[in-house]
């Protein structure tokens, strides 16, 4: 209803003027046009043309419409004659608003009205969109921050951290020669998680080194019932990978594949091929562990899946086999 705001206000006392001026066919056509323009501009032209950076066409369109609207009195006159063109002078005694023959070709009033409506509708729309996109950006930034935080929290499992510290404490209090090495490994994996893992991509050799340090620290904690076979084939030099992709699978294997009662082999194989990394991990399942850990199974893995989707889109292959006796994961990613 915005266009009405721009019409000159009649003297409210003068009912006859009101009727004659606002209910003649020319006025209605004129008004319908500008209202139609307002809505078309807001819902059609701005989203379809302006937003898609089709500025030339948009400008031409707006300009064209403006000319047409400016010519409205003429066009109307040409089509329907001037019968109802002017309200009867008897109605109000004011000057008629329609252009007499001596007036310029374009109606100045119509042009001004058109420009006002244009500025208003486009302006509101653009400001609105700008505000909205600003908010979305904020939300995205927020989400990203949250994701990063939860990511960090999830990656260094406090249970692992404190138990490893306790083991180092045991080594230190026994004045074991392995103490220093264990501290180095822990500090190296913490540094990796806290600094490198912020990057989108890290050198593959660092990820492998991190994984192997993690495995060695786990070994220190475990009994000799756990037999770990960790093999790396190929040369990681010069390759890159999204950080901490492998850890959730390795963590998972240590979480579910360990028993202090039964032999618990864990096999991890990293094959670096011409343009891909093939990762394979397999652990035996234990009845007692399966019964117990039904709670948060696979949260880490589903997070990793999401990261894989985001980062490698359809260029990766993840194959999880959950058999009755063992659990294995095959992951192929481009590096």
């Amino acid at each position, binding site marked *: 209803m915005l266009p009405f705001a721009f019409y000159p206000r009649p003297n409210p006392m003068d009912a006859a003027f009101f009727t004659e001026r606002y209910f003649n066919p020319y006025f209605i056509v004129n008004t319908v046009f500008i209202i139609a323009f307002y809505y078309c501009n807001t819902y059609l032209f701005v989203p379809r043309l302006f937003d898609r950076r089709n500025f030339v066409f948009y400008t031409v369109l707006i300009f064209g419409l403006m000319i047409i609207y400016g010519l409205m009195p003429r066009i109307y006159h040409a089509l329907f004659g001037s019968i109802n063109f002017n309200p009867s002078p008897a109605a109000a005694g004011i000057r008629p608003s329609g252009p007499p023959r001596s007036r310029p070709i374009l109606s100045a009033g119509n042009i001004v009205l058109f420009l006002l409506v244009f500025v208003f509708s486009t302006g509101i729309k653009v400001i609105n969109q700008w505000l909205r996109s600003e908010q979305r950006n904020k939300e995205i930034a927020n989400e990203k921050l949250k994701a990063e935080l939860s990511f960090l929290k999830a990656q260094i499992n406090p249970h692992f951290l404190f138990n490893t510290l*306790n083991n180092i404490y045991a080594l230190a209090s026994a004045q074991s020669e392995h103490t220093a090495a264990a501290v180095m490994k822990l500090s190296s994996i913490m540094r990796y998680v806290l600094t490198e893992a912020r990057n989108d991509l890290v050198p593959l050799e660092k990820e492998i080194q991190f994984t192997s340090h993690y495995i060695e620290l786990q070994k220190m904690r475990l009994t000799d019932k756990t037999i770990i076979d960790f093999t790396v084939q190929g040369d990681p030099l010069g390759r890159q990978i999204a950080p901490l992709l492998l850890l959730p699978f390795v963590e998972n294997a240590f979480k579910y594949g360990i028993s*202090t009662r039964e032999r618990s082999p864990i096999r991890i194989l990293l094959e670096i091929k011409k343009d891909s990394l093939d990762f394979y991990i397999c652990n035996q399942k234990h009845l007692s562990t399966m019964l*117990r850990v039904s709670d948060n199974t696979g949260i880490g893995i589903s997070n990793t899946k999401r990261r894989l989707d985001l980062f490698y889109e359809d260029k990766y292959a993840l194959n999880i086999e959950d058999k009755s006796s063992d659990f294995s994961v095959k992951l192929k990613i481009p590096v």
Partner: protein
Amino acid sequence: MLTCIAVDDEPLALEVLKKYIAKIYFLDLKGVFTDPFEAQKVMDANPVDILFLDIQMPDINGIEFSRIINKKNTAVVFTTAFSEYAVEGFNVDAIDYLLKPIEYDRFLKAVYKAKEYVDYLTSQELQEGYIFVKSDYQMVKVNLKEILYIEGLDDYIKIYLPGKAILTLMTLKTIAQKLPAREFIRAHRSYIVPISKIEHISKSKIKIADKEIPIGVSYSESFFAAMDNKLS
């Protein structure tokens, strides 16, 4: 002496506990286990006073495990590296809850707490405990707190109470198993004595209610060890 066992899935964590336990003179370590079910077997055969128990273990959660063994006379001290289980730990009547790495002072405190609990249980048992023994074709009730000492006579034993003695067909070994082990101690091949009734001890004799009881040479060491935490 208080007997104890430590269970943790991590061998190095057990090393620390072993070392600490060795430092405390009244603790007698009966074994350390990475497999809780091995520990269970041992405890079923010979109940212990204190159980040091890890919470996060691969085969069974320590809290569940303590529910399973459900030994009223065992004081459970939980040890864990990560504290999310603290509240739950106390829900299963844990005596204390130690965060790894455990400081020795803190460990000692937990052990004294456990000792207090065990002593309390023993005195409870002694105050309210009783046994029935067969004597003269009837079952006779004997309140444990009234027993002055027990004398073994081949296949019979004589339970001395203030003003009387009950003769029953039983061996000293059998009755020893029915009595609270911390209170009733073998002092001699033929005598079991309740510590709280001892009036005085010399190198080779105990005096209870005007009766002098010899301390057997082969029982001397274990007797004085059991007396240890009562001696000042």
